[in-house]
């Protein structure tokens, strides 16, 4: 189960972007790559949240949450029609 990948929503404190990055997408990508070589972004969010969604193992998600500028890493939830 630890190795199984799930989708996570990653919330980022955009204002904390290091000056070494010229664009927040590069920073997000770098943060992601620091915990997983293979993970790719499903979406990069600019308006609804600051952050992105990606597929990670539970361990990778926990590690990502400790990275500077990462506010929260939440597992994806499933909604239903009413």
């Amino acid at each position: 189960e630890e190795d199984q990948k799930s989708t996570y929503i990653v919330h980022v404190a955009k204002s904390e972007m290091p000056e070494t990055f010229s664009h927040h997408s590069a920073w997000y990508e770098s943060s992601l790559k620091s915990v997983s070589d293979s993970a790719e972004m499903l979406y990069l969010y600019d308006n609804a949240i600051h952050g992105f969604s990606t597929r990670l193992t539970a361990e990778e998600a926990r590690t990502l949450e400790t990275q500077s500028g990462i506010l929260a890493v939440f597992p994806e939830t499933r909604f239903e029609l009413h």
Partner: protein
Amino acid sequence: TTRTPEFLGLDKNADMFPESTSGGEVIIGLLDTGVWPESKSFDDTGLGPIPSSWKGQCETGTNFTTSNCNKKLIGARYFANGYQAATGPIDESKESKSPRDDDGHGTHTASTAAGSVVAGASLFGYASGTARGMANHARIAAYKVCWLGGCFSSDILAAIDKAIEDNVNVLSLSLGGGMSDYYRDSIAIGAFAAMEKGILVSCSAGNAGPSSFSLSNIAPWITTVGAGTLDRDFPAYVSLGNGKNYSGVSLYKGNALPDSPLPLIYAGNASNATGGSLCTAGTLTPEKVAGKIVLCDRGVNARVQKGAVVKAAGGLGMVLANTAANGEELVADAHLLPATAVGEKAGDAIKSYLFSDSQPTVKILFEGTKVGIQPSPVVAAFSSRGPNGITPQILKPDLIAPGVNILAGWSKAVGPTGLTVDNRRVDFNIISGTSMSCPHVSGLAALIKAAHPNWSPAVIRSALMTTAYTAYKNGDKLQDSATGKPSTPFDHGAGHVDPVSALNPGLVYDLAVDDYLGFLCAINYTDAEINSVARRKYQCDASKQYSVNDLNYPSFAVVFQSGGGSTVVKHKRTLTNVGAAGTYSVSATSDNPSIQISVEPKVLSFKENENKSYTVTFTTSASTSQSQNGFGSLAWSDGKHVVGSPISFSW
């Protein structure tokens, strides 16, 4: 929809809504199952150019091209990255990898909110009339986020992200999950960003009623919509061999049953399975049900699926009986075989006859459509109920709107039951849910936005809430279908929407982003949690006393400490005059004699556009160690307007 425009008074007051001019400037975005663009509800005849503010587009994909959009359906996008990541690539032989609606739900909600006028609409002749959306000149943007495998939060967030960028004015979400903290809830977070951009976000409250604490989409910056009935019914009577008749409802159209009574059998006696009375797939014994009408209990599987199960087993018809979970609420379905749904009491009486008669027989008599049913509206039993489990000091749902037996546009990819065995194809379908009430409010909000372009989402919601009604014309209180008794603010919120009054509410409760940030401070969110919701570093002022009770909400949810002696709770509010100058007096009532309500000041005089604040003090002498609820109301009136607020009391 047919009937709801009349039920809401839109037909007689069309001149009050400047729809034909500014209405066309309002864009409603719907996050749903997509759209069936060929529906007549999306005909763009008579609409002017697409608003210049619009930045969205029509995406191409399976059986969907840019030419499927027009001046009514101005945007259509789909979001499937999260879905595909979780479940694998979309099988395009089973569902369209495009904005096309293979389900019907999205077409129904979009046409309810803003469908064009379609004469001669009906489902098999039921609910016939001229169909139209609430804001029939508004533009529609469909964001497909729900697929065969469900609706995933990564896709929903992406759709909200895009809808904000596209410049929609109203967002309508007829979907949800359970209650969760706002900082974890993708819809709540996305809605916050939308609200900041002036977008009103209207969401369904959920269909988990009548249980308490069953709401979803309860963030205070969301308009949370419960469901009520219309004054329309589709009676289909059960006539038993003992001469007794019971009323039910049905949308069945097809081969009629023989005139002579047919044998009746209880599904529980025609099955070897545990829970055989529920008519779940493969549980009925064909030899026992062949040639008979089968009585099935409601629950567990879909109502229409029970009919399909009976049909597959050789049954000729079905009586679907409510249990205690649904009480007397009747929801009509377009069953595949002659069938009617009856309430719990009728169901019990029919079962009693079944068990006592050695050769029980029955006839089902279909009566078509009846209007003028009273009382109406009645709160739907399925409509989710408060209290608010996350922030008890915010009363939810906000209001109710029509959500039972609603006729609106449908997808040609699926039959009216949604079952794979249903090969019928229809232009319109009749379905029920808070999914149906939500787009009513989204459309009505668009109407108000068209009339008052500068009103904030909070002001529009306030107008809808403070003018909502809680009593019938004869003065009796709105009823709850689940109990047959008067409903409470935990069921109906501020009451049933009254769009004509909402156009001219007199006074409103406004809320700005800073108010909501203060609210997040008041509920002790950490800096990171606030940053997740608000997308900014916001430091709560340690020297400031934040109080949820002071959020300028159009309703009051008073929470007393239990176990104590006299308890005092203060709520502060600010009213803004959006009408002519006037003097308003306050009145307040409580159904609990142990509660005193004091308002200061008791009279407020307003100039045009002026703000005035007041404080309400709720005092209880009741000492209770148990959880209890009570209800009341507060209203400001100048003799012309009544600015009403519901109150709930909880210990």
